[in-house]
């Protein structure tokens, strides 16, 4: 197979968008279930619980971001999509941190959000703290995003 490189690279991009997106879907989903319960009791909390529900949504965006940077780098979106197998494999590897960390961190962040939605339901004045707790989980998704971005940009400059 001559084109193995591009296959591997696109697999990487797809996996990043796929896994991180799935994670966020689960996270935002369970957040929404908890949020609707709170709203049924107290509709005025909508704004607050909506923000908490959305917090695990960022991983999906990061996954999209990685997928998009990869696609631009390998020339699928305009350019010359012809890269070596080694480079393709590297792109795949570079996408994995975001894919895997994104998947698990979004689910766990969703669960933290659920707990914090419960917190806001009982103590609406503690919203500031409730928002920070899920954001702590996201740190690791951000670190993974960083590694993925730096790797992908770095691979572009290599001549292998």
């Amino acid at each position, binding site marked *: 197979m001559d084109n193995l490189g591009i296959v591997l690279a696109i697999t990487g991009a797809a996996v990043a968008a796929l896994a991180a997106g799935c994670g966020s879907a689960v996270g935002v989903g369970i957040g929404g279930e908890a949020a609707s319960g709170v709203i049924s009791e107290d509709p005025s909390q909508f704004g607050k619980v909506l*923000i908490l529900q*959305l*917090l695990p*949504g*960022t991983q999906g*965006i*990061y996954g*999209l*971001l990685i997928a*998009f*940077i990869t696609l631009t780098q390998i020339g699928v*979106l305009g350019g010359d999509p012809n890269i070596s197998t080694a480079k393709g494999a590297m792109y795949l590897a570079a996408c994995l941190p975001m894919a895997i960390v994104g998947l698990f961190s979004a689910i766990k962040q969703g669960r933290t959000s659920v707990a914090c939605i419960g917190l806001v339901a009982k103590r609406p004045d503690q*919203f*500031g*703290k409730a*928002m*920070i707790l899920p*954001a*702590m989980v*996201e*740190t690791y998704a*951000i*670190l993974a*995003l*960083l590694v993925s*971005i*730096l790797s992908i*940009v770095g691979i572009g400059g290599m001549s292998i």
Partner: protein
Amino acid sequence: MAVVPMQRINICALKKDRKQILEALQRKGVIEICDVMKEGKVFHKDDVSDTASQLTKNIQTGQKALQVLDEYAPEKKPFLAFLNGRQEVTIEEYDLFRKIHPSASRIVKRLVTLDKMIQSDRAEITKNKLLLEAMEPWVSLDVPMDFEGTSSTSAFIGMLPNVWTEEKLVETMAEYGPVEAQIISVIGEQTCVFLLGLKKHKDKIFDLLRMNGFARPMNVSSESPAKQIESLRTEIQRLEDEIAKSIEEIEELAKNREMIQFFVDYETTREEKYEVINRLLQSEHTFVLTGYIPVTEIDTLKAFLEENFDVDIQLKDPSPKADVPVLLKNNSFARPLEGITEGFSSPNKEEIDPTSIMSVFYYMMFGLMFSDAGYGLLMVVVCGLILLKFKKMEDSWKKNITMFFYCGVATMFWGIMFSSYFGDVVDVVSTTFFGKTVSIPPLWFAPTSEPMRMLVFSMALGVVHLMTGLIMKFIQCVRNGKLMDGIYDAIFWFVLIISCVFVLMSSSMFMNIVGLTFILPSAVGNVASIIALISAVGIIVMSGRESKNKGKRIMKGMYNLYGITGYLSDVLSYSRLLALGLATGVIGTVINKMGSMAGSGVVKVIAFIIIFCVGHLLNFAINALGAYVHTNRLQYVEFFGKFYDGGGRKYMPFSTKTKYYKIKEN
């Protein structure tokens, strides 16, 4: 610029002035009542909790009445009406309300009663409809349902499972004939039958019917089904009319909505006042009120009270042990962020208000994470217009919107620095529609093409932020007279971290990684390593100083030095400035690219505009949320973690906490 100092105030006045004084204090809203003095022989507390609970009940009925109005006669509110703030009324108008109070109270009660009537009518209708449904299969039966037969016959009215015909029924009953069978109706798998047999066979027929699953209907009445159905229908109609009449009356009463809102506010104000009366110490002719007052308010209040009433006012500094409430006061630039500080916790007695220092970093970091000139401009314009248009906005809204205004300015600034205008819309539009690429060069550099440079900048900013935190800690220690603690716990760390940075900057390997071209001479590196070593030793020796045991003290110090890994992760945490900044920019680019790919000609322009608007709105929303949350996180976790514990109690003055009307001070 900081925490407003508080004083303890004792006001002693005559009981005849109690109402006026309390109402004046409530309107001014500058004293937080506290009860520290104990009851004695002369002074004791009055129990007015009965009145207070009556008021609470009134407030609840008032709110219920407003809910009823909202349900049956909703008010059309203009868009963004909530930003208008509460309507202002004068003290005279407020006092006059006492005269209309009884009629307002009547209307409120009437509304609640009407609502209850509607509820019970609706329940009644449901019940009748169920009955009607049960009666409908029997409509063609022309005898009452409880008809038992004549002197020599017995009637059986009821339902049999499965579908039956008259012949089949007569055949089944042939043994005890003659019988007259009539099928009233067949509904699904149920047959309603009327069977007439001889009285002497009554029990036998009944047994036989029972074996076939015969069941008498419920709710038998002495009226014929047709009549019964008729009366049920009339009843339902009557109830519906009654509901309609009630709703009409509610709609009629809806013109009193403002009066009811005033009623709720009036009662809320009174409730608050009675709560205070409950805590006052009173003698036969005088009362004493104690509380905390911000020093800035003392003179005006004192002058006002002494001019109008016979009062004795005593002021003193609160004792060091007292639980003094905290009021923050900052300049207009930092004021919008007081809510952020209070969202963490108000500063305790030993701490300074971090809001003003934080504000610089807050706006800057928000801008860095959002970093798009287009989005920034949008924020500035929208928030600016709102601030201009709604002058009487409630304070909390005003704070938030002003905060986003400043955040927008910062976002615009960094967007221009990094050349991000709705992603890369200038390039895309010029290339796609005009065939010539025009791009605005960044004032500084473009993070998308030089991510490493941005990463280094983010972390450098992080080091500055953390070091500012350590300096704050030092200042706090000095203010509390613990100079040595400040040196051991803040300065040692400060020196250690800074010298570590110098050591790194003199190593060519590190500088290669981060892509910086200059390298500090190795002599600087050597000196810095010695300084770092000294401060590390200082931390080992001094940070465990509360332990008497020397060995334990050293062990504790070494463990604390291990905390340097915490600094490492703190600094790395600032990489989110890069990550979120890139996320905004790159997703914006994706949207522009998608927009430029669809169709051709006029369709292309329309498609681009639609995709541009929807896509950027989405990107704006999700990234504004991200920037807000993560700016807060950097302040709360990394910055506050260095020096700020909070735990102070927010200042809650005795004031009018109304919802609809604001009483204007003359």
